[in-house]
């Protein structure tokens, strides 16, 4: 039998893995972006004890390899009686890790945002959370779109690590096919193709959103 026929016959495994990867990526991207926004909101204002705690947490995420974090959540936490399924542990790891990165991306943009924006909003009597929601957040998000897209693709690539903590996604599917039929090159080529497809979708989505932003007048310099 032709090797491609073998892969075509194992399409169910790949499809299941593909859907799992998309699911993990979609949830972690949404929750991570949300977490990034929430952390950005919490970091507004003068430095306090809690804020330096959040900053320390973000820095910890930036210096910890993702695989070690996933290991810690899946293999380490059961010692404290916290046992999660592989999917939950993977999703939690992706969300926390990339949420911290998203917050860092937003914060870098927040630091270079003109002070006049906030001052004008205050002068018009906007309240604190309204300023954040309607002025700060749209500006920050729209101006960091390329960075967000980049981080989303890194997030997608990090889902591949989760095959090591026994999540059944594309890499795990390719691995099981290659170890059953011994066709490593073609199995992983299919996995690469599937990841590439998701990356293309992410890129075009970011392009769509940024053209929407251009229409709404976000990229005046």
């Amino acid at each position, binding site marked *: 039998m032709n090797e491609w026929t073998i892969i075509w016959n194992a399409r169910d495994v790949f499809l299941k893995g593909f859907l799992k990867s998309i699911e993990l990526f979609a949830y972690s991207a949404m929750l991570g972006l949300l977490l990034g926004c929430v952390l950005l909101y919490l970091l507004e204002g003068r430095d306090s004890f809690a804020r330096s705690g959040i900053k320390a947490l973000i*820095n910890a995420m*930036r210096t*910890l*390899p993702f*695989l*070690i974090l996933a290991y810690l959540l899946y293999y*380490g*936490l059961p010692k404290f009686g916290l046992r999660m399924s592989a999917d939950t542990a993977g999703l939690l790891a992706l969300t926390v890790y990339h949420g911290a990165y998203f917050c860092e991306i937003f914060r870098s943009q927040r630091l270079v945002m003109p002070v006049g924006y906030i001052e004008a909003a205050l002068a018009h009597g906007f309240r604190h959370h309204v300023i954040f929601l309607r002025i700060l957040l749209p500006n920050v998000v729209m101006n960091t779109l390329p960075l967000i897209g980049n981080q989303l693709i890194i997030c997608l690539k990090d889902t591949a690590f989760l095959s090591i903590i026994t999540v059944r996604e594309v890499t795990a599917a390719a691995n099981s096919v290659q170890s059953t039929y011994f066709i490593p090159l073609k199995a992983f080529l299919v996995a690469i193709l599937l990841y590439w497809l998701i990356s293309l979708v992410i890129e075009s989505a970011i392009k769509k959103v940024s053209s929407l932003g251009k229409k709404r007048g976000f990229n005046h310099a």
Partner: protein
Amino acid sequence: MRCLFCIKGSPAIAVIGLVDLTRVTNRIAAVTYDPLFPILGAGLIYMVMISVLVKAQSLAEKKARRLAV
């Protein structure tokens, strides 16, 4: 910045069988049946390595800015 990613991606090579810090961690965990502390230790070592590089980077940036101005 990218050299940090290089270190942070290095645990991936443990998967294909190279004996790096992550692989050693797994071996210790497999022998002692107690994965928490080896993983915490490895995480700490990675964090120290990368923090040193982050510090070096910020020093270099400061130096570069002083030279540029």
